[in-house]
């Protein structure tokens, strides 16, 4: 179990600590002067996924596992899975994450969002026992590396959204959570809670427009 202990990093720059550890200093309105600091605070886990993809880095995977596996399990149990089924599915979700780490696109989603979609698909598969038709992929051209500045802005927006969810009054947070467990009417979540969905929407729109342009 020693593998779970974070140690000094050998891969150099932009290694994320577990997210939100620095939440206190990470004020939402202030701009960080240094890009590396922004990466540290606002792009949690992105570098972990890169290390899993590029280096098959088990330690990065372990840290990611320790943070996300319990949350994925909670998500599945709240969606109606038994403890045993949730445990089994969570292991499969985490294995999928390892196997598909090359598909993660930090210009389009946070790591948490990507894991959410994998967990949701597993939920449909295991709980609803159905196929999951997915929208057509918008694949990147062979040359199209994600733009680092765009990655940073999107990841920052995701962190802002995450922080906003965490700071909602309990009642509203509960409302949103229940919507995601298929337990509540979903309409007008943004309108009712004032979450900053507008800005993240425009970031995602820009990324898609760029993608369409690149594909022409």
């Amino acid at each position, binding site marked *: 179990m020693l593998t779970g202990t974070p140690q000094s990093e050998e891969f150099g720059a932009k290694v994320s600590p577990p997210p939100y550890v620095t939440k206190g200093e990470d004020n939402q309105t202030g701009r960080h002067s240094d890009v590396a600091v922004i990466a540290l605070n606002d792009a949690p886990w992105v570098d972990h996924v890169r290390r899993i993809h590029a280096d098959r880095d088990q330690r990065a995977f372990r840290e990611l596992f320790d943070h996300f596996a319990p949350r994925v399990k909670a998500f599945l149990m709240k969606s109606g899975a038994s403890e045993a089924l949730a445990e089994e599915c969570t*292991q499969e979700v985490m294995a999928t994450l390892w196997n598909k780490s090359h598909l993660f696109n930090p210009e389009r989603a946070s790591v*948490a969002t990507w894991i959410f979609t994998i967990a949701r698909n597993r939920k449909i598969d295991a709980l609803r026992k159905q196929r999951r038709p997915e929208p057509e992929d918008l694949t990147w051209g062979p040359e199209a590396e994600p733009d680092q500045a765009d990655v940073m802005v999107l990841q920052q927006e995701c962190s802002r959204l995450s922080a906003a969810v965490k700071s909602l009054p309990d009642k509203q947070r509960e409302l949103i959570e229940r919507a995601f467990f298929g337990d509540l009417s979903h309409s007008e979540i943004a309108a009712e809670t004032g979450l900053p969905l507008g800005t993240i929407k425009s970031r995602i729109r820009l990324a898609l427009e760029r993608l369409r342009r690149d594909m022409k």
Partner: protein
Amino acid sequence: MSVRHQVTDDVLTAYATGDLPEAFNLVVASHVSLCDEARVRLETMEALGGAVLDDLSGESMSYGSFEATMRLISERPKEAIKAEVVRKSCDVLPGPLMDYVGGNLDDINWRPLGMGAKQVILKSSLEANVRLLYIPSGAAMPDHGHTGIEMTLVLQGAFIDGDERFARGDIEIANEELEHTPIADIGEDCICLAATNAPLKFSGLLPRIAQPFLRI
């Protein structure tokens, strides 16, 4: 591509959280494949899903869970390679629909409905059914007997319903209260994907989707 009639928030969010029957999932996945703005809205909801997941207090994993996951990975190392299959849409059918048809438009085994109209029923879970409809230009849609929610996505040509015109990528969501007689627009034969829920298999979610329309 200018899609004028997009999927509603409620349906899109239920798709994002994995709470729709398969037949409706197929319509939404096809719609999102054809409508970038719906894709932006979907990915925004998924971003919120990621934030919610990250905010959950986790359920503790079983002893040896990480090691079990690593075993899963070493036992099934080929998963990543299998996922690389790139779907290419044909001119009419978006990618997710091609999976269900098992090919492109030419591969469809149409069944005649009379007056030149034809259909093919696609295989999906029992809660709802989904079919492709082919309506000659200028003809009225045959009675396809929806008793609950009906979602219709236009893939080729257009249809007119009352004052509204629905063209490629547009989605119409109707319930049984809405009396309508869609007519295929002149100019081109109309091909639609239509899903309705089977009334005997009424799932818990559907009344929630129905709600906004019941107020009409």
